[in-house]
């Protein structure tokens, strides 16, 4: 594919999509780090946030966004208490099936809550004005695109500081690397797990805000496709380490943006087959992920 086909606008949009997916990858990776649990239902947190924004669209934006955060954090905490904690110590496969069930359950709840006709959602107006374009160095960029990129960079930076410089961050990294030893040293499992779940919920709420600007039509399946794509990115990048998972999330978002921006739709119909074949190949040939350093000790996982 000649590079000339990729115009600056597509490039910027792709970076923004990569940033959003990277945030979701971090949200999935954080919880995986401390619980060894791939949260299939992560997209439904985003969906819950999106619905909250939709239902509160007649309020002041700040109220609406605050409600979005509150709902997503409450839901995430409830899931942690009711499902994740009782499941602790179960095999990863059982946990995966459970979150798979949870995803379906929450999606079905949305179908009940969605009192319109189940498919047509009303646009979220709160943050709609962010769709206006501004001119950056001769390129027309929507404000939300800039917001996504800035949010991505800022949140990843904050997270790096939190994990690298604070005590709770150190404890989370230790729990991810070797939970048993961390507990023997006095690291409180409930606290690190609770904090990881909280952070992943904050990220899901942020993603909900950005996604609803980009795609205002909220449906029960909202966030499902994104979650599957991000899971692919996370597995291909390397689930064992937070930074490879994040990079995987960014890469798959960026690639998705580029491919959809450049190739006509009829050329991408078999894209899922190619992508999921890649997933299988990575699992078989490089289980640590494409970005994991070759032969590195698989000790640190956050």
């Amino acid at each position, binding site marked *: 594919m000649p590079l000339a086909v990729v115009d600056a606008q597509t490039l910027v949009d792709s970076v923004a999509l990569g940033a959003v997916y990277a945030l979701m990858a971090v949200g999935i990776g954080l919880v995986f780090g401390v619980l*060894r649990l*791939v949260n299939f239902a992560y997209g439904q947190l985003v969906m819950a946030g999106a619905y909250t924004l939709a239902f509160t669209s007649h309020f002041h934006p700040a109220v609406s966004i605050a409600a979005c955060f509150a709902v997503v954090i409450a839901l995430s905490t409830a899931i942690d208490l*009711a*499902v994740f904690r*009782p*499941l602790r110590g*179960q*095999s*990863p*496969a*059982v946990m*995966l*099936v*459970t979150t*798979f*069930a*949870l995803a*379906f*359950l929450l*999606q*079905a*709840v*949305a*179908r*009940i809550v969605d009192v319109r006709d*189940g498919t047509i959602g009303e646009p979220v107006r709160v943050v709609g004005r962010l769709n206006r374009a501004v001119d950056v160095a001769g390129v027309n960029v929507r404000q939300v695109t800039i917001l996504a990129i800035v949010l991505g960079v800022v949140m990843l930076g904050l997270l790096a500081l939190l994990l690298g410089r604070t005590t709770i961050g150190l404890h989370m990294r230790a729990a991810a690397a070797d939970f048993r030893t961390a507990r023997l040293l006095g690291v409180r499992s409930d606290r690190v797990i609770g904090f990881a779940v909280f952070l992943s919920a904050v990220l899901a709420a942020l993603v909900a805000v950005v996604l609803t600007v980009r795609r205002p039509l909220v449906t*029960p399946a909202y966030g499902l496709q994104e979650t*599957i794509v991000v*899971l*692919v990115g996370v*597995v291909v990048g390397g689930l064992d380490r937070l930074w490879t998972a994040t990079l995987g999330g960014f890469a798959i978002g960026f690639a998705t943006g580029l491919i959809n921006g450049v190739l006509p739709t009829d050329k991408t*119909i*078999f894209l*899922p*087959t190619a992508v*999921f*074949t890649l*997933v*299988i190949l990575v*699992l*078989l040939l490089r*289980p640590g992920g494409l970005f994991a350093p070759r032969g590195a000790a698989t000790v640190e996982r956050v």
Partner: protein
Amino acid sequence: MRRLAPVLELAGPLLLIVAAGLLSTAVSRSTQIYVLHAIVAVAMVVAIYVFIGNSGVLSFGQISFVAVGAFAAGVMTVPLLLKGAILRDLFPILRDHELGNVESLLVAAGVGAVLAAVVGLPLMRLSGLAAGIATFAVLEITNNLLREWTAIGPGATTLSLVPQTTGPAQATIGATLVVLVAWAYQRSRFGRRLRATREDPAAAQAVGISVHRHRLGAFVLSGALCGFAGGLYVHMLGSISTGQVYLELTFLTLAMLVVGGMTSLWGAVVGALAVSGLDSFLAEAERGALPDGTRLVVVGAVMALVLVLRPSGITGGKELRL
């Protein structure tokens, strides 16, 4: 009593299937379709159980084999005259031939087995989380190909005009066959060895059991049975689209297996019938007072509850005992 155990292991499931079959002939036409659904669900869940239950390895991919079985049986039984008109892009060999009911079911089983062999050969090296994700990828790939590749099927449109041959008799006989094969397999040397690898892979390998080969065997057999169940399914519905053999069916069949108890034939049968019953009841209720979506909420909640509170399922994952 000990000699009675294998008989009971088979008799319990068969009795339930026959009872359901008889029930389907005694009820109204609108209720009958629910009962038939339940019996076909038994065939699917037992087919899935042959792999997951015996190997202890999670798979999200078995519905892929149901899907290819359903489309193979469907495409091959649509009358030739109509096929030329509605499925013009098909490969000539598919377009120009028409099969009878039984042949189509055999083809469905064959296609399921072949796909399972192709996929399983590399994938059976994985277990745990990696197996879960890789088999999910298989489901996505199968769905994508069936949806977009019009040379092998109807693509994104619904395949209709499939002869509806799965009535009470065919459903009951079909499910019985699947249960018989599953029972014979788990009592065989291969089945017992695979179950040994489930309990302790390292020990099984130490006494010379090849985990990879035994898992692959169960995977292919499961693929064949899944394909066969898919054939029963399409002949019951009379039409099929890719969305019907994708995520929701994967979720429902896994819920049935989990709720019944993943590690026993009895659990698979009981789970399939129990969850089907609940599902039908709620589906009927959704047409009345309950809002759309209640069905999946309840089934999802039941599945999650069982996983959290009693991971071995309502039968405890054990075969029927007196």
